[in-house]
């Protein structure tokens, strides 16, 4: 038996191929599970981060729905902003908190497009809360996706409006105390109460079952947009072991025990089944 060889995939003139310096003679790429809307599969996010899984789920959903050539993403500012220029999806990069308005302008100008936003909890619930609430109330035909890890990951682990009670962050060293730091906002529940909203779901990417449920919710959310039903919203709980100050392998369980205990998983609203 020959020595194991580490195979590396690289992008050459837009095509993903095996790196010739590592490929043994005669090796070829027999299958590629990379969603076609991903340009460069590599990222510089931390090990154990949930955002790449969430991002991939969004892109797979768009591909499955067959609306690739109509898709436009609007990105907020956070760790996930790193994806905004390595996708093969049209992207408008927005300011922190402002993605729903930018998405509104795009959708109004080009009604046949499929427009989604990618924002974190800091971007959406702290900086730009009124943006998503008003976009939802207008029934804007867009799909907003919140990657909720309950912490400002990019700045290094600071309290956001969704941080759960008791969670330690760099500016709540003894844990979030409701009396001192206020209480977490459950955005999905707030949005579900608004007329104009077709679908709201909260899911997570901390295990295979939850990833599958995330894909289902995303599919329903994008369908709601394509079918002109109204505003749709998917909140995806993602792991942030770096910002939670825990070991990488503990993050999936930590998500279940902490984040998901406050931000409970499930479909919050669906006009199709109401």
């Amino acid at each position, binding site marked *: 038996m020959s020595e194991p060889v580490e195979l590396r995939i690289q992008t050459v003139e837009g095509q993903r191929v095996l790196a010739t310096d590592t490929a043994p003679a005669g090796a070829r790429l027999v299958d590629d599970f990379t969603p076609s809307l991903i340009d*460069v599969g590599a990222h510089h996010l931390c090990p154990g981060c949930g955002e790449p899984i969430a991002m991939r789920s969004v892109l797979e959903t768009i591909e499955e729905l067959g609306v690739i050539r109509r898709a436009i993403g609007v990105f907020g500012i956070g760790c996930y902003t790193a994806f905004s220029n390595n996708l093969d999806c049209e992207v*408008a990069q927005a*300011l922190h908190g402002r993605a729903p308005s930018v998405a*509104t302008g795009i959708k109004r100008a*080009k009604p046949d497009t499929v427009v989604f936003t990618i924002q974190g909890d800091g971007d959406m619930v702290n900086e730009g809360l009124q943006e998503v609430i*008003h976009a939802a109330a207008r029934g804007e035909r867009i799909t907003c996706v919140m990657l909720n890890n309950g912490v400002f990951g990019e700045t290094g682990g600071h309290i956001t409006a969704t941080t759960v009670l008791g969670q330690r962050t760099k500016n709540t060293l003894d844990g979030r105390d409701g009396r001192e730091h206020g209480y977490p906002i459950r955005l999905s529940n707030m949005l579900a109460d608004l007329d104009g909203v077709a679908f709201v779901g909260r899911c997570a990417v901390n295990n295979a079952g939850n990833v599958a449920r995330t894909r289902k919710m995303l599919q329903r959310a994008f369908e709601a947009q394509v079918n002109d039903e109204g505003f749709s919203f998917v909140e995806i709980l993602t792991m942030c072991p770096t910002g939670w100050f825990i070991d990488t392998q503990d993050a999936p369980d930590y998500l279940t025990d902490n984040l998901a205990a406050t931000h409970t998983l499930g479909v919050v609203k669906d006009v199709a089944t109401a």
Partner: protein
Amino acid sequence: MSAELLEGSPAIAEAMIAAGCRFFAGYPMTPFTELLEHMAKRLPEVGGSCVNAESELEAVGMAWGAATTGMRAATGSTGQGLSLMQESIAEAAMAQLPLVIVNMARAQGDYFQATRGGGHGDYRTPVLAPMDVAEATVLVQRAFHLADEWRNPVLLFGDYYIAHTYSSVDIQRIDFGPVAPKDWGLDGSSSGSGNARLVSPLGDTKQRDDVGYDLADFYRRAAEMTSAMVDGIERLVEVVDCDDADLVVVAFGTAGKYVRYAVAQLRAEGHRVGIVRPISLFPFPDQAVRDAAAGARLVAVYENNQGQMVDDVRLALEGAVPTRFIGGLSLDTSGFGIAPDFDVDVLRRRIQGVLDDIGGAA
């Protein structure tokens, strides 16, 4: 369209629509409100869209979004509202977005906000300042052209008078010449093509074999484009009776129209006085100011503020001619109405006072 009597706000709205603007978003604020009203009424009639935004932050964000598709898009407000928009205006300039922003200002205290920009970072925004409704209907169309030509936000600096004066106008689409096709505009069609479009203040290229933006290269190219824009945009200015003038008065916008009238009266009475009226506030018509003042003994600057454009006049003159500020704040604290300062007799007395000081021959 033939000439018709229109109030300033609907006249500007019609000119924007004639220029091809099909998206507008705004939040009511005096004296900007009527422009929003008219766009809300008219845009749906021509296949466009107007959104009554929840605040100026969202209004500029929506216009940003529409502009990323290549559609001619605009927003506007009054100075305070533009303060809220500054982050987006600054980043829209970095994202190379053609966007038109109308400031129906209260008096002229927003000169620095307009010409320096209240936002962060290394950017500039061209500013056009009409003196009346008719000029506004031309300049707002030029604003769309400049925005497309240079892929940069452009400001129109209006005011209460321009918003609310009725004037006979004949609004036609003005052809300012060709602009490059907007092949960068988002419509979803390039997704999955292997070369999907990207409109971002962080960069406009993808690194095919790596991740992240090449900010150094992007900022360098952005600086080159800004520099080309500043050098390339035609300076607009009106110069009257300055060839033999002992005193040159500089004023812009509505104030410029009043001062022009007062100067014409004084000139008719034999005073050697002329006026320079900058129409493009940025880039500032430096050379025209220098040339007009070449033989003058003094340059006086009238503005309806505490003295802002006077800085640009001094920079243009580089100390060649003494410069004096003769303007002042509107005494109407709201800035909405007719200030005592905006009275031809008052303006005449101020200019006459300078003429007396320099001993100009009557």
